[in-house]
């Protein structure tokens, strides 16, 4: 049994007078202890909603949840808020995108750290403060005693994100969710933060979900990658396998869109035509079909089947009727090769 098992997760947002929007649609994946799993996709692909659903942080009104999320044997989606509050911050913790807005501007760094320790670890104020000092040191913040008394605006962007990470690992969670933790940071700081995360996961043996639109982040950090498009996972594989043999046309397009340093400067950068708004409902065909260079008539013949391009031990499922590098049209039950 994996640490985290997400089964057929779906999230639908409803607003009165408007069509319901299915942001996440039948998402299934596992995270094992000590494993880093990347979820990649562009804005609106449902990757952040997936992470919020795992945390139980979706708004009570207007968001409808389907499927199950099991953490260490405990089913989270059916838990009441009171029980969920005990899980959040203790068993599963989250690092958000923008550390400037994610930290409370009028509360000291120390208090924002100790409050999670006094809440979950049962520490008293003094003990929590000593522990907070250790945590800041662990995430590489010099002079932690002084920093504890400071406010977020007195810290640099990278420092703030280190504080966010310290808060997240404070109670030694089993699962860490990082939602675009480096997007708001300078490139040089990005590398430091990723190094820090990699080391923390290796030391603590916790599982990690890395939500990102940056394939470079995934390449350096994750063991497994799930590529999301329009609310569904369209391709899953080990990181090496995915980069070596991208099989969904969308994944392929993303990889080709990365500028290469050895490319001819006269060449145009590769782009995926259209935008994520040009889409088809999954029950009528492939959502990526309008933007796909490999599209054929079969793409719109109903929900696209999942082709298994890997082996039972090293799976590589692709939700596509005409995966890249395969000339066969995939039908339900007819697996390429």
């Amino acid at each position, binding site marked *: 049994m994996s640490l985290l098992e997400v089964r057929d997760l779906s999230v639908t947002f409803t607003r009165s007078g408007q069509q319901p929007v299915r942001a996440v649609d039948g998402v299934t994946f596992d995270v094992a202890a000590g494993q880093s799993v990347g979820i990649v996709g562009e804005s609106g692909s449902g990757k952040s909603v997936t992470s919020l659903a795992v*945390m139980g*942080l979706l708004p009570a009104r207007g968001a409808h949840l389907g499927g199950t999320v099991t953490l260490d044997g405990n089913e989270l989606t059916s838990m009441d808020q009171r029980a*969920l*509050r*005990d*899980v*959040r*911050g*203790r068993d599963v*913790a*989250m690092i*958000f995108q*923008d550390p400037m*807005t*994610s*930290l*409370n*501007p*009028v*509360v000291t760094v120390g*208090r924002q750290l100790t*409050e*999670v320790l006094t*809440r*979950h670890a049962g520490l008293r104020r003094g003990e929590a403060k000593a522990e907070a000092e250790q945590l800041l040191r662990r995430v590489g913040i010099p002079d932690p005693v002084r920093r504890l008394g400071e*406010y977020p*605006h*007195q810290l640099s962007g990278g420092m703030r994100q280190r504080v*966010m990470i310290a*808060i997240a690992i404070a109670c030694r969670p089993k699962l860490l969710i990082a939602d675009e933790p480096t997007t708001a940071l300078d490139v040089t700081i990005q590398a430091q933060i990723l190094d820090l995360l990699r080391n923390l996961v290796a030391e603590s043996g916790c599982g990690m979900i890395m939500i990102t639109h940056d394939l470079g982040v995934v390449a350096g950090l994750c063991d497994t990658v799930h590529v999301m498009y329009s609310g569904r996972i369209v391709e899953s594989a080990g990181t090496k396998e995915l980069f070596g043999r991208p099989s969904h046309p969308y994944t392929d397009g993303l990889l080709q869109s990365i500028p290469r340093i050895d490319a001819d400067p006269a060449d145009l950068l590769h782009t995926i035509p259209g935008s994520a708004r040009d889409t088809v409902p999954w029950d009528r065909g492939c959502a990526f079909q309008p933007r796909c260079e490999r599209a054929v008539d079969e793409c719109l013949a109903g929900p696209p089947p999942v082709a298994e391009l890997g082996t039972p031990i090293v799976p590589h499922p692709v939700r596509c009727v005409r995966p890249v590098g395969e000339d066969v049209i995939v039908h339900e039950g007819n697996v390429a090769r």
Partner: protein
Amino acid sequence: MLRFIVRRLALLVPILLGLSVLLFAWVRALPGGPAYALLGERATPEAVAAIESQLGLDRPLWEQYLQFLGRAVRLDFGASLQTGQPVIEEMLRRFPATIELALAALLIAVCVGIPLGYLAARRYGTWIDSLAVTGSLLGVTIPIFFLAYILKYVFAVELGWLPTAGRSDPRARADHPTGFYVLDGIITGNLDASWDAIQHLILPALALSSIPLAVIVRITRASVLNVVNEDYVRTAEAKGLLPGTITWRHVLKNAMLPVTTVIGLQLGVLLAGAVLTETVFAFAGVGKFMADGIVQRDFPTIQGFILVIAVVYVVINMIVDLVYGLLDPRVRVS
């Protein structure tokens, strides 16, 4: 912190200087002038000239201004034309009544307004929210004199629960060392007098609180609505913190920043603007004195009142900024 206070107090000097120029110019620009106000419209030019010479009005303007300034600095605004007593003494005697009334009204507005605004925001879009929004609209729009008479009619005349006017029961005997009647009762050990003063305060304070209450409800609601959607509140939820901690430390501490400013401004408005309420309830404060002064063209009173109110405003604003600095560390540093 000390430097902050000193800097703010130093700012008072240019503000008051500018205001004194404006006030001086405004009074000189009034048609007629004090000589006609004293002598009547049909005064002879000789009599007017004599009075103007006596009052120093024939001197160059800059000299008059310096004289005015020199006196104002010593809080000498001249004698009230209503009573013949120095304006400053008249005002000092009446200020405790106005402060007491303003604080009582503000207390009602804050104690009811902040919880109501918070509740409306957390129950956004429900009937509680609609009720709070409509109610606050009514509170802002309903004329105070109308509301004051309604309150007086229902609670004082019809039901007889509370007194109709004044600051205390005229038959009661009480000493007033400070002029704050509620406080006086406590100081002199005469709790009956305090209770009597509170009963006299309730209706005027209710009437006076309608506008600040409405404003505080609205600002609190809008501010809380903003803050609950902030990322750091989501962070607090992701930490699994208890709802009470999230509400107090993460939502209210941030949401109170704009509310603090509004409370300060409203206190200034209350101190300056209790004119109608004080008139309806025959509450002997500075507002009523000022209203009478305007009717009787009592220029020294008007000038003194405006300058004193301006100082009060500036000082209140400074206190608000100080409190703001306590609440918001970002302001403290810059």
